């Protein structure tokens, strides 16, 4: 039972990170109609800026976390301007390839600057135990992760549904042309949305680093893929589906590692995507969506 609980906590943590990355992908896709393949790389790059640089400079965890989110935002602006906007007229394939290229550039510039090896981060106080659930110690990092997840999703939901800015974003997503007629600066909305999506990736980086205490370039591609898989699994329903699918994916992955073998996590996770796609190509949750413009 203790093993199960420990692994359940694991899955919860991993799932939270995937969910935040997936949320970024869904946000970008619904507003820009772009499938960003750079999210994982953005996560890692933001993590380096925030944690490796700021933390070693100030030693302040909160500052480092904020720096990571801001770095994610900034990187997102750059990527949108340089890689997404020029290729937007080319449709899905063009932006897929450019975000792929952008992700590659980000990752390799990072390796060039910071080296290919993982970097340990001193998260000190985060690893102190908070409480125990059925014999399994839970530390501050894990609690924080969940808090961040809840705040993140609530924030996105509140902003998009309850604020006027959110209304503008939704309008731009549903029907860009008509929204433009009503005076919405579509280019700016797109850029800001992409930047928000990538700061969500940065948020994921915060969760990851707080919990595991290190950051490494090679997890970039893995997280991109996990996020994309969760989105695909979640189906066309968007945010809610992607979130559920993220936890499902994490559960499958952790379950495979625990009960089958240490290296089987990825294989089983991606394999199950395939299996589910055979049975249900539209994903787990479907919502009828009207796209105009």
């Amino acid at each position, binding site marked *: 039972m203790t093993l199960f609980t420990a692994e359940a906590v694991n899955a919860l943590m991993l799932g939270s990170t995937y969910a935040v990355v997936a949320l970024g992908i869904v946000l970008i896709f619904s507003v820009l109609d772009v*499938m960003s393949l750079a999210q994982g790389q953005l996560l890692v790059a933001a993590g380096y800026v925030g944690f490796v640089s700021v933390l070693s400079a100030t030693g302040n965890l909160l500052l480092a976390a904020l720096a990571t989110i801001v770095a994610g935002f900034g990187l997102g602006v750059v990527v949108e301007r340089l890689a997404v906007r*020029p290729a937007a007229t080319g449709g899905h394939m*063009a*932006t897929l*390839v*450019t975000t792929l290229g952008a992700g590659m550039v980000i990752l390799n510039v990072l*390796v060039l600057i910071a080296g290919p090896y993982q970097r340990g981060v001193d998260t000190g106080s985060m690893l102190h135990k908070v409480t125990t659930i059925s014999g399994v110690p839970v530390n501050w990092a894990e609690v924080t992760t969940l808090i961040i997840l809840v705040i993140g999703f609530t924030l996105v939901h509140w902003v998009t549904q309850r604020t006027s800015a959110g209304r503008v974003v939704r309008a731009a997503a549903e029907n860009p042309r008509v929204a433009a007629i009503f005076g919405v600066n579509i280019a700016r909305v797109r850029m800001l949305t992409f930047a928000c999506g990538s700061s969500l990736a940065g948020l994921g980086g915060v969760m990851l680093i707080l919990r595991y205490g290190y950051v490494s370039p090679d997890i970039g591609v893995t997280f991109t893929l996990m996020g994309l898989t969760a989105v*695909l699994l979640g189906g066309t329903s968007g945010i809610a589906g992607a979130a559920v699918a993220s936890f499902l994916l994490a559960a499958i992955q952790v379950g495979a590692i625990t009960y089958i073998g240490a290296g089987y996590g990825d294989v089983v996770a991606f394999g199950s995507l395939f299996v589910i*796609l055979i049975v249900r190509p539209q994903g787990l949750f479907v919502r009828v969506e009207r796209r105009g413009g």
Partner: protein
Amino acid sequence: MSAYTTQIATLTAINAIATLGFYVTLTTGQLSIAHGAFFALGGYVGGWAMIHHGVPLWVALLAGFCGGGATGILTFPATRLRGLYFAVGTFAFGVAVAGGIVYVKQFGGPFGLTGIPISTTFTITIVTLAIAFVAVQLFDRSPLFLAFSAVRDDPEVAEVLGLRVAHVKRITIVAGSALAGVAGVLYASSVGVLQPADAGFDRSLGFLLMAIIGGSRTSWGPLLGAAIWTDAPEVLRFTDNPQWRLILFGCLAVIVMSARPQGLLDRGDLRRLVRLVRRRPAPAGGGPGGVAGLDAPAGAGDG
């Protein structure tokens, strides 16, 4: 040619063959991020046959052809997915395969397949490339290509017009993956070693970039792309880091997709170039020595 130059040239040709495979799958609008997996598995099957059954290279090539094709068949569920989602699906498939190969003992597990007899020569590779290229060129000029383009451009209309879209998509996947498998065997028997990472994202990305940048609408594109990709590290020799090639190609990908989405070489480009060189006027309703009506209609041929 020095031994080193020969090695580079052979590798270029191998990449070209695999990228032609990617191109074939792309003709129906399917952007595959799994061709590394097809490449590697074909190579594994062929290499394994060479090691454990002592078969000669040409038999191994056949085995690789089948191995690659069989792996392609495994991706059939993804044909239900449209463009973007198909790409993500193949991404997942490729990574899953790369992760799964580690557990196949016959393939050497995490250390890979070693001791593959080196039988690939530059000549064999070039000949294989020539055969593959001619085949793809013939396909490019055939009515099949128009049908496949219809599937790419508007699957619903194609279906309504009587094309079995799913069937067509599957054909291009198997053809493309089989070609990649052949290239994989050539690679395995050239380097002598195959590793699980060879099936992974990096390799698949390489083939994708070669085709997209070289030219995704013509079978000459993969050749150019493979040449650029394989030979870039030589030109970039003044830098010590392998990252520069990837940074260069990442930037190229962005630039090409923004400025010239069809890639560097487009359909008809080569023909136009030849015409320019020979300073022959473009045939108009007949042309010198040609008969009106027998000229290939614009767009159906290739440059």
